[in-house]
């Protein structure tokens, strides 16, 4: 068996992920650190800036195909989207439509707690612009793939951005949700949600849960090369076609289907569940050994795709 050393995606910095995910030495950065396009807000609050405002954007080759790609740095302000950070994401997305070179796909390595609260309204507007730009890219037929595996997860506005994409790849250590654990606890009380209960947090926002529910399309181990393979598969053409795999069209019909699916999911769980709610939900999705999910590795879980997923 061909064994190789696994490099944890979660433990890499954004720039390390970029370098390892795309073809070797193919990443070309727009607005690199030396250009010092930094936040105008942070210094006023006594907070140091980062030379790239916490996100690297550019173009690269992935299995020989041109992609536009962005990576958020979760260690800088929790990956929070500030004005400049958001503008860089928007610029990359818009360039996919208006630039001279049309990429095969756009990839976002998301790791973010959402809006950077220090920048308040500017950050909120930035995230909404990212969503609009992402949907414009999809409307232009270009596929958008979001990859989530950083230890800070993908929350808040970026959680919504992720679900606006065509395709979501997650590791089992990755997390995806709207409100983060601390936010839920603060607003609904510790009886409702104990943010320090890590097992609970992962049961309700972790990669395995998201995959079982169909909120993420591909589940991988916490391994950079597994993410690379999933990214290549996500942008590879269908069958013998020489054309890039197109974005999934958003239509009124597809949105109504999605709404029906979410309504059905909400109705699936009874009002009073004996035992753990997440495990009960997985059982209702048709997962026979739902109680063992937490201990399973990704490979074992993948053999058990529940029949009722996409509910």
């Amino acid at each position, binding site marked *: 068996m061909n064994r190789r050393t696994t490099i944890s995606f979660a433990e890499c910095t954004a720039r390390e992920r970029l370098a390892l995910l795309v073809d070797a030495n193919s990443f070309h950065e727009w607005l*690199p650190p030396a250009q010092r396009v930094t936040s105008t807000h942070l210094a006023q609050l*006594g907070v*140091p800036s*980062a030379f790239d405002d916490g996100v690297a954007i550019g173009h690269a080759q992935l299995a020989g195909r041109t992609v536009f790609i962005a990576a958020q740095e979760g260690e800088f302000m929790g990956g929070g989207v500030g004005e400049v950070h958001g503008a860089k994401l928007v610029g990359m997305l818009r360039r996919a439509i208006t630039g001279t070179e049309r990429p095969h796909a756009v990839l976002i390595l998301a790791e973010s707690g959402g809006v950077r609260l220090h920048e308040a309204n500017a950050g909120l507007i930035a995230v909404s612009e990212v969503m609009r730009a992402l949907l414009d890219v999809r409307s232009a037929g270009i596929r958008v793939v979001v990859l989530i595996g950083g230890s800070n997860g993908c929350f808040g506005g970026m959680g919504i951005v992720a679900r606006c994409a065509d395709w979501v790849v997650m590791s089992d250590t990755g997390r995806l949700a709207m409100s983060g654990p601390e936010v839920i606890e603060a607003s609904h009380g510790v009886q409702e949600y104990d943010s320090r209960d890590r097992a609970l947090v992962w049961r309700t926002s972790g990669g395995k849960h998201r995959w079982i529910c169909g909120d993420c399309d591909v589940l991988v181990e916490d391994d950079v090369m597994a993410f690379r393979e999933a990214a290549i598969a996500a942008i590879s053409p269908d069958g013998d076609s020489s054309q890039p795999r197109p974005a999934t069209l958003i239509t009124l019909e597809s949105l109504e289907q999605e709404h029906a699916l979410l309504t059905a999911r909400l109705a699936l769980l009874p009002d009073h569940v004996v035992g753990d709610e997440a495990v009960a939900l997985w059982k209702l999705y048709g997962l026979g050994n739902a109680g063992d999910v937490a201990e399973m590795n990704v490979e074992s879980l993948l053999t058990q795709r529940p029949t009722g997923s996409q509910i």
Partner: protein
Amino acid sequence: MTDIPVGLETLRFVFAGHRPTGVFAPVLVGVVGSGNLEVLLEPREGSGCELHIETSARGFGSIWEAVARDFHERHQLAGIRVSVNDMGATPAVVSLRLDQAVTELVL
């Protein structure tokens, strides 16, 4: 009470170097996270080694100067600008990051 104004502290040190770096592509290492820092190396006119530091930990100017001087004595670089964004890294972490940046310098 302290007489240090609220906000970031900005420090600048310039040393006379002896090992010219010439032209090189900018190097970035590290991340501005808690107890961490990022270091950006760029070419600079002249023979000086200039360190520009922005830090959230105020009032440690003399320690920064010692760390910067140690760094310069180890490498003696000339014609280089070292820019640091710091979020409260300890002197040992700062020294390691500075050395890491020099290691990645392709001359």
